């Protein structure tokens, strides 16, 4: 059954969609029936910019196992990256753009 359960999180970042790169401020995360995958259920993430109306999105559909593996690899990449580069200050969507 399709549910309406969506985990929503604010984020700071960019994603490349059908119109090229775009700022994103929201991820909608859910585990439900896919649109494209043949799996019965997928972990789906829609990256959007709600501040700009949320009409464009970058979408992914992952199997449950691969989604869990991805979460682990994201955390591992952050840990090793921050060890190498130092932990950055919290990012803000409203931070001024610094032109070097």
């Amino acid at each position: 059954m399709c549910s309406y359960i969506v985990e929503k999180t604010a984020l700071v970042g960019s994603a490349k969609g059908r119109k090229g790169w775009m700022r994103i401020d929201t991820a909608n995360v859910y585990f439900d029936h896919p649109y494209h995958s043949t799996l019965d259920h997928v972990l789906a993430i829609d990256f959007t910019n709600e501040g700009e109306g949320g009409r464009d999105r970058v979408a992914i559909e992952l199997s449950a196992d691969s989604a869990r593996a991805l979460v682990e690899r994201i955390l591992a990449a952050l840990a090793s990256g921050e060890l190498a580069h130092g932990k950055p200050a919290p990012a803000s969507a409203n931070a001024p753009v610094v032109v070097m």
Partner: protein
Amino acid sequence: MSHYRGLQGEPVMFRGHNGDQGEAYYARPIGSGKYPGVVVIHHLPGWDEWIIEVVRKFAHHGYAAISPHLYFREGSDSPDDIGARVRAAGGVADAQIMGDVAGAMAYLRAQHNANGKVGAIGFCSGGRHCYLAACTLSGIDAAVDCWGGNVIVDNPKDLNDKRPVAPIDLTEKLSCPLLGIFGNDDVNPTADQVNRTEAVLKRLGKNYEFHRYNGAGHAFFNTSRDAYRPEQALDGWKKVFAFFERRLAASATPIAAE
């Protein structure tokens, strides 16, 4: 069983809830005959290719079928993008969907090829909507609920402004014969929930028939998913067409006269 290999399918405009005008897909046999109508209610992910194929399947079997795009108010983007936005917004209110289903029924009855009978079928969340329509709309001659979950709502917290009433609580108002198709491995609705729904229908003396399939879960008609179970799906489609043939033929007896 008659097959109508000459058919016409196309997007059309219809009037839905509040008189809003939106898009629907309409397919019917080519010919001068009178045909029963079927409203096809899509699932939550949206008005996708599979649901359009279902509309054409009904036309192939001699029905004038229409599937209203229940998210047409969201614009003309691709159905999957629109479906994602609707999901993020918590879905569409039941009242609006009932208005759109009623509008689609009116569209069918207004066509010169209509025999006057109209059935409804829904899949997944559309199965729930179909159950709801059969209990709240007048003019449905037969309804088919394909694995609609949340007909029974065990946790009252799952009710909200958009979905304020559990369909099971409206069963007393069910006004047409109901066919239910379910997979025993489904988790929403579970086999227990299907049994409890049937118990209510039985207690209230409603005209219904339920078919349960072993080795099948949710959405087992859907040929584009791993959930597809060809043997069970073929039998399920036979049940659907036999049901509609009995109930929607021009000579079918109204339920009140049985």
